[in-house]
């Protein structure tokens, strides 16, 4: 290549890169649904996105790269090119009014949803899941295992390794510690952070952490721990689908939820709200449960055609789980997350 050719090529590459960087934005008449990808996105796609497309003609694109910092950056730069996101409850409460649009209640019908879940006017709760204790039934034979938070924190009666999520926020280990320390479940909030961490310190040498749902399943499959505080969907996958030797302890079931949110500054807020309304249909939500082990936020449609064994793990199909349900207060976590995270890092990262 000659000198001029090389220089021209260098400039052409720069121009190409610049052009590639400036793309993006939802085209008119289309929406972008952003989630964490994988089986979750596939399920959302089958239960909501494709049917919505068929019914309204509005094309729904999938974006599997959910990252809260990315949404914040987009909204602050004034060009949100994702329109609808199933986000964690605490994040919706934390960013309502700054990054998120209020839900248009004239379009979106939230009636029937547990009012405890609607913690900000930007939230349209979509689905729920629980954090429950499961124990290794080769280590503790059936009937002799731990039965809840009190036992999870009792290393004298139940020695062995226990696992919990590594993420400070919103980690139900904090609530679990307070219950183990004798706080009645109706009086949990506002959480006494000092007291919780004093209790957590007592089991620190026996604690290991999972970083992702799939890692919590891996813990159960490999039998690496003696008990685990894990999401019910992941426990179901390990125990029922892959025969991990774990059993539910029942006891407390900390209930979390994902909520549909619409960022500020989307191209077509009305279309985004229509999509949110579409996801609030009980029958469609019940369909989602057949695809991925999360429960509808909106009662009204019977849960049928569930995969075998799943009903054992869901509050609405197993009274033993329902009894232990404690709704985790996402508003409290939104307001106090920074304080808990600092304390968490001091305890575990220092």
């Amino acid at each position, binding site marked *: 290549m000659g*000198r001029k050719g090389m*220089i021209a090529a260098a400039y052409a590459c*720069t121009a190409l*890169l610049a052009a590639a960087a400036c793309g993006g934005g939802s085209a008119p008449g289309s929406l972008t649904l952003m989630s964490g990808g994988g089986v979750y996105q596939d399920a959302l796609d089958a239960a909501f996105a494709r049917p919505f497309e068929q019914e309204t003609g509005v094309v729904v694109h999938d974006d599997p790269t959910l990252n809260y910092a990315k949404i914040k950056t987009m909204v602050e730069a004034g060009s949100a090119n994702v329109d609808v996101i199933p986000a964690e409850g605490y994040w919706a409460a*934390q960013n309502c009014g700054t990054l998120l649009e209020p839900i248009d209640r004239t379009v979106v019908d939230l009636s029937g949803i547990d009012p405890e879940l609607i913690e900000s006017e930007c939230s349209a709760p979509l689905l729920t899941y629980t954090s429950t204790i499961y124990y290794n039934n080769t280590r503790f034979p059936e009937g002799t295992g731990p039965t809840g938070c009190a036992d999870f924190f009792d290393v004298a009666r139940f020695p062995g390794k226990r696992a919990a999520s590594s*993420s400070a926020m919103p980690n139900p280990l904090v609530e679990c510690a307070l219950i183990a320390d004798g706080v009645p479940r109706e009086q949990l909030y506002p959480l006494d952070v000092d007291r919780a961490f004093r209790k957590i310190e007592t089991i620190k040498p026996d604690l290991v952490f999972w970083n992702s749902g799939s*890692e919590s399943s*891996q813990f159960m499959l490999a039998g690496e721990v003696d008990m685990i505080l894990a999401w019910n969907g992941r426990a179901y996958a390990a125990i029922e689908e892959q025969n991990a030797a774990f059993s539910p302890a029942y006891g407390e079931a900390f209930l979390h939820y994902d909520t549909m949110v619409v960022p500020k500054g989307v191209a077509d807020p009305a279309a985004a709200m229509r999509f949110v309304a579409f996801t609030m249909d009980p029958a469609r939500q019940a369909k989602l449960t057949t695809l991925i082990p999360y429960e509808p936020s909106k009662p009204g449609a019977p849960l049928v055609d569930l995969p075998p064994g799943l009903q054992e793990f869901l509050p609405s199909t197993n009274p033993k789980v329902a009894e232990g349900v404690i709704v985790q207060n996402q508003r409290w976590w939104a307001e106090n997350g920074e304080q808990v995270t600092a304390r968490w890092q*001091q305890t575990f*990262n220092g």
Partner: protein
Amino acid sequence: MATALTLPGPGAARGLGSRAWLALYVPGAALLALCFGYPLLNLLGLSLATPGLGNYVQLWDSPVFGTVLLRTFTTSAVVCTVCLVLGYPYAYAMTVVSPRLRDLLLVIVLVPLWTSLMVRTFSWLVLLQDNGIVNAGLTGIGVGPLPLIRNSTGVTIGMAQVMLPFAVLPMYAIMQKIDRRLLQAAASCGARPTAAFLRIYVPLSLPGVLVGLSLVFVLSLGFFITPQMLGSPSNALLSQLIYTQITQLGDGGTGAAMGFVLLLTTLLVLAAMVGLRRVAARSAR
């Protein structure tokens, strides 16, 4: 950063006039200014936005930040050491074996680079866990089971595997240029093989070692997935704190300040390494 450390080739601009050379430099520089320089300035602004030096003062006062920053550097240093111990003999072997075997060795060291980081890290998790294959083998020969993951051992194993190519390739590039007749000359003057190797070969290979280790060190400082998955929270590196700060707490200011402290300390270490390279180059002459 990598380009700053590679040795300038002799007469790099020989084929082109000096002004044409500048013209080639402009697109790259413009791209760097636009895609690296400008965001970096933005980040600096963000770290200083609320309120003045407040974010930096907060980091100075934090009991966790200093510990984690120090740990980030010591972990990188440990990974460097492992890469040196494993990589130096490997790179040396590549210079003495037959061309076919050399190609095979090259492929072996490059394969990890072509595999997704997530896949590799998860594989380590499965291999090294308490009931994993490695521990089953160790138990079989009566040594195990040893705690190989969720501690610094796991982090070091995982990071060293990822970083090894960055150590081996620069070392090999320099070693292959070393004239082996110098060793014969030393032997003919009465030097024993070890003395010839240590006093002739090692100093000549040092520039490659320093380039390789600088790359490994700097890249290791930014590790996130490996320490998160193969370590315990007490092995957390700075990038993990930055991630929590920015994505979970939405606190870009503190996260940006953490990033800047890391960048500045990294530049200091790099400057020290460049200084060391000059000394090494002088002693090799």
